[in-house]
């Protein structure tokens, strides 16, 4: 037998082989991000609307500089410079999953600060909000109406109609009626 002549080399190579496997097992399957919440949990938090922040409250929190809320502007820096919620921090959407962002967010989680994500509209911020929700951030909200409504509200300061404009999912029209009108014209 060949290896019988050199048993020491065989043991050495065996040890190396085992080491490689152990190292492989340890480093294997460690993705940087993983889902902590499944879709049923996410859907539940969407339906009970716990993750929504209405603009009136947002204005109130921002003006009194409430330390338990931090506004995160996910628009690009140019839009942020043009105008943003007071004391908001800017994390452009493309930087959302970067290491620094995660560090910042983890700090807020430790301080029990509520993170409020916003962009120009709610739809624009919706994806980021849902992604962070799925990654396990529980104390995270999205500004409904977005910055468009927020900045408009500040200027006009009018009386809010019965169903505020920022509940964009309420039908604005009687669609069936309009469709009928369209056919009669």
């Amino acid at each position, binding site marked *: 037998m060949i290896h019988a002549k050199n048993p020491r080399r065989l043991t050495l190579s*065996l040890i190396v082989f085992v080491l490689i496997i152990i190292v492989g097992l340890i480093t294997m399957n460690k993705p940087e991000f993983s889902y902590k919440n499944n879709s049923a949990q996410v859907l539940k938090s969407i339906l009970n609307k716990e993750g929504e922040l209405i603009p009136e409250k947002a204005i109130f929190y921002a003006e009194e500089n409430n330390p338990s809320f931090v506004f995160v502007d996910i628009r690009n820096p140019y839009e942020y410079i043009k105008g943003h919620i007071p004391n908001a921090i800017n994390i452009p959407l493309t930087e959302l999953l970067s290491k620094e962002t995660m560090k910042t967010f983890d700090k807020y989680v430790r301080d029990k600060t509520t993170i409020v994500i916003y962009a120009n509209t709610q739809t624009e911020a919706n994806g980021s909000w849902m992604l962070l929700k799925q990654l396990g951030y529980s104390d995270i909200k999205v500004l409904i109406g977005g910055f468009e409504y927020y900045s408009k509200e500040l200027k006009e300061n009018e009386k809010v109609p019965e169903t505020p404009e920022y509940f964009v999912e309420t039908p604005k029209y009687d669609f*069936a009626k309009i469709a009928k009108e369209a056919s009669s014209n």
Partner: protein
Amino acid sequence: MNKTYYFLIALTFALGFGALFLPEKSHTKEITPEQLFYKMNNPSRFVTTDQVARLIIESDPALLLVDARSPDQYRLFSLPGAMNIPMKELVDSNGIICSKWVDYLDIEGLNVIFFSNSDVIADQVWVICTRHELDNLYVMRGGLNTWAETILKPQKPFESSPIEEFALYDFRRGACQYFGGGSISIKSDVVADPVPRIRRKKKTVVAGGC
């Protein structure tokens, strides 16, 4: 037999035994959060109401419109040919998209367009479906509210508007007629003349002969 063989056998067994205790991987089809993030940032997931109108008029066979609102709202009004997948009933208790919906959504080559009254609910459905490895999903920007404003009630552009605006307006007016039932008013006094009927005279059989 050599001792090393015993050792090798023991080692293989040990490793095989260890494999038994590896954490069980979930069998749900999901994309990674990074992939979801990448897809989320792609602005082409939004389509305009004009694009949707054009696809419906052309009766694109690869189009599936999905109304993500409640069944009550769906019954009152929806887009022609749209199916209803209420967001509430999208996933089961394990967080997996119900198989009755997957049968519709997971067809190769099919483009699925989600819509709701605005685009928030449609976008939420989009995020959930995209996480579960469904492809070719889109969101109608502005939803039915914008649909009503652009297609059902098109606004005439200003005189100074660029020509493209007028072309778009013409398209929308045509689309409006298409979706409204297409009753283009026809003046009643123009009645086509009755087509005169000319009857052929019967051929008389030649009398006589041999």
